[in-house]
Structures are given as structure tokens and as C-alpha cells.
């Protein structure tokens, strides 16, 4: 079976009904995506399939073949820079224990890809699948707005530079 994670191809031998979560964590060794409940209720296992956020604890790995899987390890633009969301997460000092945050950030990443100025209602809808036991919800909300603003500014800056930045 061939799967692609963060634009890297992996050839794996595993029962096709194995949930994608365990393939990512154990076969591939990317442990940033977390196990929280196993029934899709907590969001800690959130990854993207072709940009759509899904609960990897419920998706059999077979369904991820021919799709691009994005995990927390894959959203930074390169090895030395952070994604705008990750920077916002540091600037607002959002994580506490941090265990739920990979799932939170992947969900935010998907939200902002489609909505550059989410309202509180948009945030409620997009983020209520991600449980945080440490109570970072108010800061996550603030972080989303901060990241959205930063992304919009970057877009504006790019436009103004008429393609001088790539």
C-alpha cells in the first residue's frame, strides 16, 4: 500500500482496515498526531485528507490511499520557519499540556484555508470537535483571529509587491 504524508511517499504493509491514526504514529513514526478517544469525539487525531480535516482514528488507512495526508509535522513552510498559525500559537501562549494542540492547529489550518476572516460562529462550528481539557478555548479563539489577520496581511503585502515576493 502506498500513502503520501506531507508530500512524502511511504510504502507500507498493514491491514487495510487499520485506522490511519495508528499507521501514522506506529508504521510511519510521526507521533505529533494523537490518540484521545478512538471514536472521533475528541479531535486529537485530526489530520487532513486533501485539505479536509478528518478523524484519523475512524478512517481506515485504505481510504487514505491516493489522497494527500497532512499532519502537524507538515504545515510549516520549511525546516526553519513556522506556519503563521504556529507563530500565533506561540505569540498568544496558547498550549498548556499541549496534547490536543496538533489536532486544534490542523483544524484551524483547514478553516483558514477556506475562510480568511472567520466570525465567532465560524470558529464555534469549525472548532467544537476539538476537546481541550486544559481550557485553552478562549486563547485558541484569539489565536485563530490573530493568525487570520496575519495571513490577510501577508496576502495584502504580496499583492502590493506585485510578485516581488514569491
Amino acid at each position, binding site marked *: 500500500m502506498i500513502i503520501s504524508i506531507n508530500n512524502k511517499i511511504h510504502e507500507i504493509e498493514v491491514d487495510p482496515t487499520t485506522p490511519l491514526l495508528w499507521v501514522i504514529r506506529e508504521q510511519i513514526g510521526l507521533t505529533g498526531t*494523537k490518540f484521545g478517544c478512538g471514536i472521533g469525539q475528541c479531535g486529537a487525531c485530526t489530520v487532513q485528507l486533501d485539505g479536509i480535516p478528518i478523524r484519523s482514528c475512524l478512517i481506515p488507512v485504505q481510504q487514505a490511499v491516493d489522497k494527500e495526508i497532512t499532519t502537524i509535522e507538515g504545515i510549516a513552510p520549511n525546516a526553519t520557519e513556522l506556519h503563521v498559525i504556529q507563530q500565533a500559537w506561540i505569540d498568544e501562549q496558547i*498550549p498548556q499540556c499541549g496534547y490536543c494542540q496538533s489536532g486544534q492547529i490542523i483544524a484551524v489550518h483547514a478553516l483558514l484555508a477556506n475562510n480568511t476572516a472567520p466570525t465567532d460562529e465560524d470558529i464555534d462550528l469549525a472548532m467544537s470537535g476539538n476537546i481541550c481539557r486544559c481550557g485553552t478555548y478562549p486563547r485558541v479563539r484569539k489565536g485563530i483571529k490573530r493568525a487570520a489577520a496575519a495571513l490577510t496581511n501577508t496576502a495584502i503585502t504580496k499583492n502590493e509587491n506585485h510578485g516581488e515576493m514569491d
Partner: protein
Amino acid sequence: MIADEGDTVINIWLKIGADNTITVIVPHAEMGQGVHTTLPMMLADEMDADWKTVSMLEAPGNKEYANYALAKGFILGEKDIPSMLIGTVDGLFLTAMKQLSLQLTGGSASVRCTGMHAMRVAGAAARAVLLEAAAEQWGVSPDELVVKDSYISHPISNRTEPFSSFVEKAADLSQPAKPRLKTSEEFTIMGTSPPRLDIPEKVNGTASFGIDVTLPNMKYATIKASPVFGAKLKPIGAEAIKDMSGVHKIVNLDGAVAVIADGYWLAKMALDKLSIAFEESANDTVGQDDIYDLYLDDMNAAITEGNEEKDLKKGDVESTLANANKLVEAEYRVPYLAHATMEPMNCTAFIHDGGCEIWVGSQNPLGFANSVAEALDIDREKVMVHNQYLGGGFGRRAMPDVAVQAALIAKEVDYPVKLIWSREEDMRQDHYREANISRFKAALNDTGNITAWNNQFVFKHDPPEAPHIPYGVDHQFIHYAESTTHVPWGYWRSVDSSMHGFFTESFMDELAYNANKDPYQYRREHLAKAPRFLKVLDMAAEKANWDESLPDNWGRGISIHQSFGTIVAQVAEIEIIADTVKVQRVVCVADPGFAFHPDGFKAQMESGIVYGLTAALYGEITIENGAVMQSNFHDYRMLRMNESPKIETYIINSDNWPGGAGEPSTPGIAPAVTNAIFNATGIRIRELPVKNHNLVAKPTILS
């Protein structure tokens, strides 16, 4: 402690590198409460070190970092432990030492005990010997020296050198018994909010939690223990898994069966296929009602037999009640609560060379080492605990049960085994905050003031002051009955205060109502002799605009509670929407004496509020047929983003001895919300969780 080449060990809390960098050894776990940053800040500030060059290591589960070693002047190599840590006698120090002896991270004590007594003292002591070494080396008086940002300078002769120039000599000097500590005006790092050292790895997936540990040749296990606590397993033969590919072994423990396989999923599938049975036990028919009935029986018996446990007795409650102008009585109940850390329980164990290594997120590494050594019948020195980040602690990860299981499983094989509990196992094999009943009887005089307060409940754990009230009431009798239960008990965020905050602040609200007084004003009147509490309460009411009218279907409630040395007042604004409550806003005012990392302190207030609010609205673990009914997040409901209120936090630095941050905001949120519900609906909730009650807003009066 092992020093790397070029490091000089100053004391067991501190190494200085040849490159003048500082490494602080922190004997506490990081579970999101920020102590891997706050504790080094306290040492670095007293030392006048450059914060930018400070890093930290977590102390191993090692007796060097336990109380008795410090108290008895344990010698590390040729270095003396600062002698001031021996012999100072006051209640807080003894608590600190007790905590350290267990190497426990809990009780909201890391900053107010270890930080105050170890970190600050170690930093100040190190500064003192570095100064003495520099003075000797330069042949000048120490008074002429200036210490700043890890450098010592002598302005008169225009000399400046880094700490590292003096460490060798300093390490040989005897550290002062009682070094001077900075006053809060002198703080340069304490009281500020530098970015937390652990956050960068928590936004890119690299932070390693217990569940993430990977070792060569490691296999995976999962387990099922008896749903009826304490019942024995009927062992399962190896043939049950013989045809399962990738599944290696069944391990029968006393009350649980585990399966070892090539991956968690394989192990879980195999476990689910087994026919697992347990022996009959006396608790097989125990239900939730039986538990409450037994509590009441024991409470009544304690009274009639006159052998209740007296917690606080003041004045003459009996005759004051007998002669009361008005008598108010109420009974409250709270259910069992699970911890539900986001990371399910797990532990990796590897038995080799006569010893055991474990990798785990633990609130008590030394305690875990003790328990594992006992279980394996080996010396504690042969157990090495590699502590990891905790995906939530809340008291659950102070219990060594999962580590003992992992060690017993690993004992059967010769490779490392990572044991992971399913969420269902985690929910059903917790050490719960107990269910409880609290009965009150109070006397009001003709102006509505409380003259007598009688309160009885079951069990007493920690903190001791949890059921005590700050209000001026001359006659008080607070007492409890012992009872019995087969449900395992454990520390749950704010422990006894998680119940008594709800009990006492709900009853206080009922008394206000009976006295026909505003709940805020009523509390004010009874705090006349408690100015520190009054200040916190007043600010909460002010910031919440207490007297402003709210829209229809809205309500407002107030609470104040002290726990772990910190006073917290909260005002909750709620809205009744379609027969349920939405908590819209919480105003939180806290007096922790001094907030060492103000933003981190606020984050802990927010955290405790969301944790307590989840429990208040939804939290309910029910026992049926001796076992826990709930199993996952579909039936043990969690608060989510769309239900989370706006939270505003204000800090009062009253310059009292520091209080804790991790737990003190949890006790007060439940009563603030239920008092607000009463304000909006006239419905008095005496039994949590709120979800079990039908809420209808008071009808608006049409003009």
C-alpha cells in the same frame, strides 16, 4: 546528578556551563501548568542570571530530589546541600518537604513551596558564593561588586567577567545558610511573563508525551481490568490468540488481562476478541443509590452515636440553632468525577539487567519508582523513571497503577512494552473524585446575619481548610462521617475544595435569599473581619458590573473560595436558552499573594474554570452493578469551544505568602453558575451536574 564536561554543579538545583549558560534542575513535572518555566525564573532572578541563557532539565526520579535527603544534608559529590534547607520549621516548609519526599507535582505547590524554598534559595545561595569567589579572585570587597545578567563586575576597576570565570572556586565555598532573598520591588524576571520554554515543541508535534515514546524492538500492549473494582480475573490461556497474526502474548495479572502485539490496534482487536471474565465479588450489585444510602446511614449513625469526626468547632452551635430566629436547612450532592486527561493512561517498561526502566508522564516519579520496585520485588535503585510531558495530570498521574501494570507485563518478555489504555479503560479505571453529600443547618438572627453554621459530609482528604468558610460566624460545627466504598479515590483538581466550594457557596447564597439580601452584599457583610477576602470579592463585583441589569433570561451569580493559599472570587453571567444554560461570561479575581508569571497564572485561572465548569454542567460518573457506566466522551460529556464562556481574569498581588495557581479557580465556578441559574430561574440546584435539571427562565413581568 551527572554534570556534562565543562559543567560545574553548584548545588543539586543548578549547573553552570563553561559557556556561562545556566541549567536549572526542576523536580516537578510539566503538565501544562508552566512550572518548567516558572521555577527556573525564580532561581535565575535570585541569581541575577541572564534569562536568555537559562535552560532546564527535569530531575530524575531519584532520592537526591526527595525530602529526606535534603533534610539530612545529603552530600552530592563534594558539594553541600545549602544548609538553610535543613531545620527551618514552619507549616509550609514541612508541606514542601513532604511534597519533595514524594517528588510530587500536585497540591498547587510547585511554585509556592519548591519555588520559594528551593529555587529562590538555591539561586540566592549560588549568587552569594559566586560573589565571594569573585571578590577573593579580584582582591576586593563583595560590596563593590555588581551582578547582572550572568556577569559580575567591579565598576571601580572596570572589570567584568562571566559567572563561568568563578564557578570552580565558587563550587568549593560553603553556601550561606539563609541568603537574602529579593523583595518584590527588586524582581527583574519574577512577576514578568516570558514565553514558556516548552511551548515551541507543543505547536509542531515534537513534544514527547508518555504515549509517544518509541524504543528499538518495542511492542505494544493494551489491557482490560475488572470493571467491578477489585474483582479477580479468570486467567485466559495462550491458545486464545494462537491464530492471530502479529499478536504475541496474553499476560494474566491479578485483576486484569493484557495482550501484547505489534501495534496498539492489533492488541486492541485481539483483546476485544477474548472472552474475558472475572470472579464474583461482594460489590457486584452496588449501585449509585446504594452508595448515597450508605453515606446517609453513616452520617446519621455518626450523629446518634456521637462519634462524628470533628473538623472545626467554635462556640455553641446546638443551642444557637435551638434558639434561632430563623432556621435554614439544605442538603447538597455531587457525583463521582473522572479526570479524563486528554492523553489516556500509558506507560512503557523495559526489564533488563536485573532492573526496570519506565517511560511515563508522571506527577510522582519517585513514588512510581517505589511502586514498580515493590511490584517487581527489586531495589528501588534498580528502577529508572524517564519522565515525559503529561497530556493532562489533574491528579490522575500521581497514581502509579499503570506503571505497575506495564512493569508486570514487561516482566514476561525481554523487549520494551508500551502499554496504552483505551479511552474506555481510562474512564472506567480511574481514581475518582468521590461522590458526596453535604448537609447544612444555619441560624439567622432578626437582621438576617448568620449566627450558627452546622455542616456535615462524608470523608475528608485535602486540603484541610476546604470545608471552612471565611465568613464571620461565631458558632460553627463542621464535622464528617467516615464511610466505605469500593470505588477507588484519587486527587482530582482541587480535591475536597471541588465539592466544598459548591456546597458552602451554594448554601451561602440560600442564606442570602432567606435573609432577603443581595448575594454579594450578604457576603460583604460577613467578610467585615476578612479584609483580604473583601478586596477580592469587591473587585469581582466591580469588574462584573454587579448592579447593572441584565437582559431577560440572563442571571448572575457570585462565589468566593480560598484553596491552596489563593483566594478566588468569580461572577458568572449565564443565559437560559431553550431550557438549558449557556455560561456567557466569567469574571475571575484572584489573590495569589504574588503571581510569579502573571500570564501563566491567568492561564491557570482559565484552565481551572473550564475544567470545573465542564464538571458542573455535565460531569457525572455513575456506578451500576459495581462498575462505572460511562465509557467515552459521548456519555461523559466535555465542554467545547462553542460552550466556553468569555473569561476575564484580574490578579491582586497582595504581597502575602504565595498561593498556588493550578487548582484554586476550580472550586468556585460551579456555585457561581448555579447561583446565577437561581438568579435567572428561581430554581435552586442542589445536586450536580446541571444537565440533569430542567431549566426555565423566570417569566418576565409584562407591564
